[in-house]
């Protein structure tokens, strides 16, 4: 039978028990005495349990009053970090606004263990409840976005049986660390492929193709291409790490973008004619002078124009246009490089500035891409306090827009 749920029903049970014992007593003999003792024991137990329940409720209720106090609640909601108050069986008593924003609905009574069920979290809750001393652990929320927290749990003074857990967000730090290790892994992978191909050709040249002059010539050409690719990759890697070494741009000078672009278009003439495109630039009324580092800005537009020639060459022309813009309310210059090639599918757009991310790996390799060009562009633009915007649709070409602060 299911145990009675409220004191009223417990009283009815008591009364029934009394009646039953009376009946048993009438039935007579030693059996009756055993019955009376048994039934009374049950009744006493019920009463003790009801009383016990009253007591057990008093504790969380007291804590709730504290947490429920409007001022305290507002105070907790105003804290920047997620914060959860829980009881001694790890039931959630209160979750502040940031906690609800970060982890969704955390109603009172929800099991903390069940909601944050990682082994580290369960271990932390168990030991803080058992030992009553502040402790910390790491908690990872992997989906939908990977987030990492340092969670500190400690007993709440003045309210026995209640505990406080605070979450401090460590996602940024961790992401930086991972970026670095990903970078090294990627770089070695990218260098290994051309290296393997070169060493393969050397093997062939010393063995089966030793006396084949025609094959030798062909293989040497490929080997030269591959070593060229490695050299470009190392150049790009070095310029990226140089950029990272000095995250803050020093020694800004006024740079005349129109002159810079003229110089650049001249130096790109060879690549442009090779790709069958004409580059047109139109500066209109926009201010031409921005504040920045000339060599770096040269690299930005060199990479953008090279990309436009390589991947957007099918359209036959590239337009460079400038227009006045603003950055955080300050005057700025917006420069767009527009090609009329095949465009970039939508799903790649958020990722193309990632290192070594390629929309089409084979095409990139064929066009001598290193997979780092846009990463460098993005980095330099960010150092200048500017913005990089990318618009593209398959079949309609792509527009890369750089917004830089005016001098």
């Amino acid at each position, binding site marked *: 039978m299911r145990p009675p*749920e409220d004191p009223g029903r417990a009283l009815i049970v008591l009364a029934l028990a009394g009646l039953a014992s009376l009946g048993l007593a009438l039935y007579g003999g030693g059996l009756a005495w055993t019955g009376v003792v048994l039934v009374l024991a049950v009744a006493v137990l019920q009463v003790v349990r009801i009383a016990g329940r009253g007591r057990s409720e008093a504790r969380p209720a007291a804590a709730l009053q504290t947490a429920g106090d409007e001022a305290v609640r507002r105070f907790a909601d105003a804290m920047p970090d997620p914060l959860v108050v829980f009881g001694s069986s790890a039931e959630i008593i209160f979750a502040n606004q940031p906690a609800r924003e970060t982890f969704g609905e955390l109603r009172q009574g929800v*099991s903390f263990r069940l909601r944050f069920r*990682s082994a580290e979290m369960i271990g932390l809750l168990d030991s803080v409840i058992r030992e009553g001393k502040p402790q910390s652990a790491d908690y990872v929320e992997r989906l939908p976005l990977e987030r990492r927290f340092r969670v500190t749990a400690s007993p709440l003074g003045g309210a026995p049986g209640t505990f406080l857990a605070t979450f401090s967000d460590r996602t940024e730090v961790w992401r930086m660390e991972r970026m670095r290790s990903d970078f090294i892994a990627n770089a070695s992978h990218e260098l290994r492929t051309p290296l393997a191909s070169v060493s393969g050709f050397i093997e062939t040249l010393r063995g089966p193709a030793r006396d084949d002059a025609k094959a030798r010539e062909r293989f040497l050409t490929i080997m030269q291409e591959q070593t060229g690719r490695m050299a470009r990759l190392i150049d790009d890697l070095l310029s990226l790490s140089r950029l990272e070494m000095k995250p803050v741009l020093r020694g800004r000078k006024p740079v005349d973008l129109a002159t810079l672009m003229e110089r650049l278009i001249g130096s790109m003439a060879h690549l442009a004619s090779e790709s069958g495109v004409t580059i047109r630039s139109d500066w209109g009324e926009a201010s031409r002078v921005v504040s920045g580092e000339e060599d770096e800005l040269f690299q930005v537009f060199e990479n953008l124009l090279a990309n436009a020639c390589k991947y957007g060459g099918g359209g036959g022309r590239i337009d460079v246009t400038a227009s006045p813009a603003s950055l955080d309310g300050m005057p700025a210059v917006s420069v767009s490089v527009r090609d009329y090639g095949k465009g970039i599918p939508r799903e790649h757009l958020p990722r193309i500035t990632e290192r070594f991310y390629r929309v089409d790996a084979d095409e990139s390799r064929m066009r001598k891409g290193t997979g780092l060009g846009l990463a460098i562009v993005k980095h330099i633009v960010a150092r200048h306090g500017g913005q990089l915007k990318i618009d593209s649709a398959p079949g309609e070409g792509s527009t890369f827009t750089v917004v830089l602060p005016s001098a």
Partner: protein
Amino acid sequence: MAESNHTVRGFDADLHMLADRIAQMGGMAESMVYDAVSALVRSDESLAGDIRARDVVLDRLQREIDDKAVRIIALRQPMAQDLREVVGAMRIAADLERVGDLGKSIAKRIAVISRESQPRSFYRGLEALADLALGQLKDVLDAYATRSVERIPDMRDRDEAIDSMYTSLFRELLTYMMEDPRNISPCTHLLFCAKNIERIGDHATNVAETVYYIATGRQLEVDRPKDDDSHKVMVRE
């Protein structure tokens, strides 16, 4: 469980204990699958061994939950929601144990697949598939924890996304095999890994149905989309 007020506090304690075990199992099953896929991508064989060790603990937890649930039913004879809570815990534990098994079975293949270094592209689809399945599992377990059943019917539909992703992955792996016969061995193993992940999605759907049943006493309609289309995939030369 979460907001029960039983006069017999032992019963609350029993239900708490069941929920805590489920929490532990859920956390372990999730991390096993996640670690199995990242161990696969990084060819990390030591992590693979660790996953196999965790499966033993997961099995033990499931047996504990079974024993405890049977004892609760025998001794306390729960009714209505309480009964559903106990029976539901057994069912969820069984599904989570299977999820762990599937994670372990991915881990077992890591040694063979990573005998030679494989191109990164082999794993991209698998990672995306795992993200979908793990996302579903997480949402379902979160719904169980917070008792928010309103979103469950939608969650079940996400199984469809997993199935179509699996079908596209199936096709992709077949293409790799046709490109180069040396890819056949690793890609076959990856195909099994993909199948395992797809089935993790099915188990997540089962858990979603159980959670809905526990909270409402009603079963979700049976017209759930169950099939992937990989049995129809053919690649022609």
